[in-house]
């Protein structure tokens, strides 16, 4: 392979750094503000980095409510992940292995379903939740999250499953395995990277979701972390330091999960992108 000329390489690196900086500035600002004492965010001229970094805001952010919100977020997110991935896996398998015309029609419907903006469907879903007496429960959020993440999850897993060689499933059925056994013992283990990628996607979406959580919960003990951040936005002022400290705390689990599993995530998104 021919090596790129040095100048070109330097320009490329500079461009990459610029993009990275552009993307990271808000995060840097978030961390910076979270470390500033209460009066400093408004100091003029503004400082990029606090003069005396303090963990005051973090201590304040770790209120007793934080524990409740965190647990609520955890329950809602993990349950949504489990249900979405489970349903998506079965649906994606059917979509990837059936050639019937009606199936491609259904697949188009799935794609269509994820095109509605959340703001457009939130009121109908709210009404349904009220009719089902589910408002202010975990179930209301889990049902909403599953329904908004399922289409993309199906699409991701379908792409992944299509990439698996079908001869493995054929070999297993000749070896004596029935369809469910083939699915359980051959397809699911081989689809693991795709399953992980899909799970990470659902986790990221549900962990940070605000609109549904705000609309469907009414009492403090049912709030999730993103809604809980509202506490810092009062009628008479916004406590930026504590808000940003909470933001940092909320981001940590998702960043950690993504960091550990990023290779699966990239693989899952691109699988099936080049063929079929």
């Amino acid at each position: 392979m021919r090596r790129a000329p040095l100048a070109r390489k330097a320009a490329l690196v500079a461009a990459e750094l610029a993009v990275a900086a552009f993307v990271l500035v808000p995060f840097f600002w978030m961390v910076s503000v979270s470390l500033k004492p209460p009066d400093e965010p408004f100091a003029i001229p503004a400082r990029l980095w606090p003069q005396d970094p303090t963990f005051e805001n973090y201590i304040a952010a770790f209120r007793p409510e934080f524990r409740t919100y965190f647990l609520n977020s955890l329950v809602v997110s993990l349950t949504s992940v489990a249900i979405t991935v489970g349903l998506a896996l079965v649906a994606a398998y059917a979509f990837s292995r059936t050639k019937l015309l009606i199936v491609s029609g259904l697949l188009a419907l799935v794609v269509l379903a994820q095109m509605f903006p959340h703001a457009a469907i939130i009121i109908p879903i709210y009404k349904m939740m009220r009719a089902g007496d589910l408002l202010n429960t975990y179930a209301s959020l889990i049902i909403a999250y599953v329904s908004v993440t399922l289409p993309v999850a199906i699409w991701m897993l379908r792409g992944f499953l299509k990439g698996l060689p079908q001869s493995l499933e054929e070999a297993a059925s000749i070896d004596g395995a029935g369809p469910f056994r083939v699915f359980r013992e051959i397809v699911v283990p081989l689809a693991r990277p795709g399953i992980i990628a899909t799970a990470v996607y659902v986790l990221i979406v549900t962990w940070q979701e605000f609109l549904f959580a705000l609309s469907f919960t009414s009492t403090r003990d049912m709030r999730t972390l993103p809604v809980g951040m509202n506490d810092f936005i009062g009628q008479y002022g916004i406590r930026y330091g504590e808000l940003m400290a909470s933001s940092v705390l909320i981001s940590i689990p998702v960043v950690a999960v993504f960091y550990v599993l990023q290779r699966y995530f990239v693989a899952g998104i691109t699988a099936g992108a080049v063929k079929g």
Partner: protein
Amino acid sequence: MATVTLNKLGKRFGALVALEALDLAIEDGEFLVLLGPSGCGKTTTMRMIAGLEEPTSGDILIDGTRVNGIHARDRDLAMVFQNYALYPHMTVGENIGYPLKVRGVDRAERLRKVEAAAAQVELSGLLLRRPAELSGGQRQRVALARAIVRTPRLFLMDEPLSNLDAKLRTVMRAELKHLQQSLGTTTIYVTHDQVEAMTLADRIVVLHEARIQQVGTPHEVYTRPANTFVAGFIGSPPMNLLAGEIRDGAFRHAAGTVPLAAAPRGEVVLGARPEDLALAAPADAHLTGTVFSSELLGDSTLVNVAIGDGLVAVKVGPDEGQRVGAAIGVRVAPAKTHLFAAEGGRRLETQP
């Protein structure tokens, strides 16, 4: 052990005819090779016998019982795939033992059988490895071991050697033949490689364009090809085919004549294998041309002679190489020629 009977078996994919009403009876313990170029319907035939594909017409009978619509797992057979289809998330031992595990064989029994099967294909030290850690030849052996670990009624093999390099292929071919003979299990083997077909088969079924061209022992198919397709497909290099006319007891071609007694009259295709031809001075040869190429193969030399607008391959001794461009003649042994109808290419019988 099983017999397999195919009655008017056919398969269409939409407008495409993959297989046209195939009739075939496979005997118990037979090693049957389905041979043909890609797209001839051989793999489709095997997949229908396996239960991976449903026929669109006709019946499949295993041991006299119709198996159409019966799931692959209930047909009691084993298959070796072209890409081996090993389960990448299982060890070699688990791969080989999978058919037993699925059928509920208990652990101790399973271990014993896996070890026996592995020993039979010389894999014993590798049972704990994963398929990804094996060479192509070893993966091939795992696939074989998985097929023989149970005693199925039928082995199906879909081009099992085509992903191996030439040297390994020769070794595995011999092992496969030995294994099948010692087990005595009815085997159906798909290949496009006529050398594999010749060396392995009890009987060869030559398929082309969704139809059977010929069914016979390797000897029959080689010495009495049923038509020009089979003649041109079997043999390496294949049979020379020359279009010409028979008149006055001789085959007449632009490049010469070959005397043929008791031959039919009219337009024909004359076939002669490279080893049944000889080189001669142009003056006392049947056909004349110029040397196009001369290739030393080690035990023999293959001389291609440009005759008319085609090439005729002649197999001669290792030190009978020719200078390219030289004028040369080809002698034909009349008793070792084959005649085919000019129209349709069907074999014309000359000898009683």
